[in-house]
């Protein structure tokens, strides 16, 4: 943020509106958790609300809407890309085993020993 006192006062008005929106969305987050839906849908709803709140914080409190730097845009785009890789690659590599009970190789070692006796 830079500029004249008038511009700063306009920013303060925006901060107050964003604060109000964040408070409302926090209440919505808690209320949404009481809706009886399947876990994957509950996760999606919670993350959509959290993403909306996060976007407000990053855009206005962190002044990203006012940033014009190309270097920063590239750095943040790379961060988002690698964050997605970090989130998606491990999930995709194990997605075929979700919900399948897969004990560790030595999980029943005691039983095997018992059987041997």
């Amino acid at each position: 943020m830079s500029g004249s006192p008038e511009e700063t006062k306009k920013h303060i008005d925006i901060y107050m509106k964003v604060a109000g929106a964040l408070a409302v969305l926090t209440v919505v987050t808690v209320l949404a958790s009481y809706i009886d839906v399947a876990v994957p849908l509950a996760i999606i709803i919670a993350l959509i609300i959290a993403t909306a709140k996060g976007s407000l914080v990053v855009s206005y409190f962190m002044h990203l809407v006012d940033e014009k730097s190309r270097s920063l845009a590239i750095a943040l785009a790379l961060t988002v890309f690698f964050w997605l890789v970090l989130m998606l690659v491990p999930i995709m590599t194990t997605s075929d085993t979700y919900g399948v009970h897969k004990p560790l190789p030595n999980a029943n070692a005691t039983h095997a020993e018992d059987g041997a006796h």
Partner: protein
Amino acid sequence: MEIPYTVAERPDTGLNNVKLGIWLFLASEVMLFGGLFSTYVILRVGGVDWPLGAEYLNIPIGAFNTAVLIGSSVTMVMCFASLKLGDFAKYKTYMGWTLVLALTFLVVKGYEYYEKVSHDHLPSHSTFLAIYWTMTALHGLHIVGGVIVNGYFWGPGSKLWHQKREMFENRIEAAGLYWHFVDLVWIFLFPVLYLL
């Protein structure tokens, strides 16, 4: 010799070095917490049985702490706005409130930890509690770091305002970016751990 571009924008990046530096640091923090969130998702969707957060955690307390941290983000951004308006007294007040709210968050978190320990809900108890302790403790350490930095700028570090105003504004902006990031992480931690 003065360090260049601490206040003035570098022509090649379009930012001063303080701002570029804190954004790059925050990018590394995104990857740090991203790794833990990725771990959480793998453990959660890959687990045969997973408890609801509410079985172990107190939702009203978590929601209260969320409100406290959002409130501290508002007071932090008002610190910077006050400096832009040249009102140092208001800056001190808002920074004081930021510190009070941050300490409130830590006290509430400490109470939650005390409850967990007294019920023997330690990281070794379950995978859910292991990831809960890891993520919230790492976040708590970030809060402690923010309190130390903000406390410095509220106290002895604020003398810089009377000598080099623009440099002080820059430092508060950088401290604010860090603080908002810490708030941002909690915005995701709260629903993921407490509500799902």
